[in-house]
């Protein structure tokens, strides 16, 4: 008895009140590569491991951190192809909002709409939930913001968060190190140190990816390998 008998169908609750497929989706996320985000006083940073399956893979062709609008970026843990689909949908929603209201979409609105898409896939027939959790970083009139969206469609605003393989260690590390008045550069250093905690092998500009958005120009951008090297050197 128990939950396993109800794990075949997404749209059936188990006796304990859970949707077992969503639990499984969260497990898929939990076995994905670590990613994290930190909200600083004057910006947001998101970072992820970029471990490629083989040295033969051209790492310049892989970009895990994506831009949704000029001032909102996103990173994921979990299944890459699901992430691509969500990014495509979110970009389109942001663009539609902009066309209708002639205003850049506020971060909360975009997160809400993306979460609504993810929720749709937990209540329809013949589909499965997305196997990704997203960390959405953005800067709008309400200041810097960081949101996490789960496969169930629930979203939370975080000051700092981590997802993926090393989540419990990373979160403990972040809890110790986070301060409310952190500057963006400090946040990048903290992000690198957190990634380093659970990193297998040597950390370098080729196997991590960092995206930042600062208060000055409010533009989201992914750091170049040269910039990551500079930050890594400062951290040493």
């Amino acid at each position: 008895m128990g939950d396993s008998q109800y794990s075949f169908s997404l749209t059936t609750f188990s006796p304990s009140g859970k949707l077992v497929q969503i639990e499984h989706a969260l497990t898929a996320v939990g076995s994905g590569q670590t990613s994290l985000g930190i909200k600083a006083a004057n910006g947001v940073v998101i970072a992820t491991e970029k471990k490629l399956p083989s040295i033969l893979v051209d790492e310049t062709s892989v970009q895990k951190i994506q831009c949704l609008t000029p001032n909102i970026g996103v990173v994921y843990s979990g299944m890459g192809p699901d992430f691509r689909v969500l990014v495509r949908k979110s970009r389109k929603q942001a663009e539609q909002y902009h066309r209708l209201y002639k205003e850049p979409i506020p971060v909360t609105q975009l997160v809400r709409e993306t979460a609504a898409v993810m929720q749709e896939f937990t209540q329809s027939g013949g589909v499965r939930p997305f196997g990704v959790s997203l960390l959405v970083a953005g800067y709008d009139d309400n200041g810097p913001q960081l949101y996490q969206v789960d496969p169930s469609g629930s979203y939370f605003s975080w000051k700092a968060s981590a997802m993926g393989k090393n989540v419990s260690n990373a979160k403990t590390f972040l809890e110790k190190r986070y301060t409310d008045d952190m500057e963006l550069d400090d946040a990048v250093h903290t992000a690198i140190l957190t990634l380093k905690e659970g990193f297998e092998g040597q950390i370098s500009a080729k196997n991590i990816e960092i995206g930042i958005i600062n208060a000055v120009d409010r533009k989201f951008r992914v750091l170049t390998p040269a910039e990551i090297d500079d930050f890594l050197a400062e951290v040493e």
Partner: protein
Amino acid sequence: MTKQMVEVPPKGGFSFDLCRRNAMLAKKNEGAKAPSFRKTGTTIVGLIFQDGVILGADTRATEGPIVADKNCEKIHYIAPNIYCCGAGTAADTEAVTDMVSSQLQLHRYHTGRESRVVTALTLLKRHLFNYQGHVQAALVLGGVDVTGPHLHTIYPHGSTDTLPFATMGSGSLAAMSVFEDKFKEGLTRDEGIKLVTEAICAGIFNDLGSGSNVDVCVITKGDKEYLRNHLMPNLRTYVSEKGYTFPKKTEVLLMKITPLKETEEISEARDDMEE
């Protein structure tokens, strides 16, 4: 199945359902005419100079014989390196350029590259052809991309031309006469702006449907300058210089004039065009 995002106009977009009824009503009631659209009765021009493309437009929007907008913007943003002048029905040009601009933004995210002028051209002409000329937008599209500077004209039915210099709108003949006389290959930036301004002025002064001021947009590789109201040959004074004179028997104790409209000098290119 889940709702898929499909690229068809949503229900409530242009539907031809009422066209037959409109025609019947017009025939039935001899006096009742359908309300007229706001046409931009325009002069729009573009030319290719040595470093890129210059677009020019007048700023009068007409509603039949009435000037509806004395200072409207006819040069529309399509992409950071592509701008489009629009003649014809104002709503059509704005809606179609807005829509293509949106589609190009998504395309840029997906490809990670700068948009090409031919992409904008194809999106526009496909849309216009699909509506068989009912979307009355005549456009001059210009921009600079990796393959170089490009200038195109697009007609309401969806045909396009690729030209070194082009004019469209009701003032196109007046402007074309200036271009045919003075255009040459390899103009410098200042010569190009001067020629475009002359052509638009020819339209402003010789065509009823065009008037007011001249807008110019210069697009070069990696840079663009939107010179809004580059030339204002039709300035209007609103207030009599003498001020208000009271009737003779009134004793004026205090006169204080508060300007209702603050005039601002906009000297640099408008960045809020884009977002």
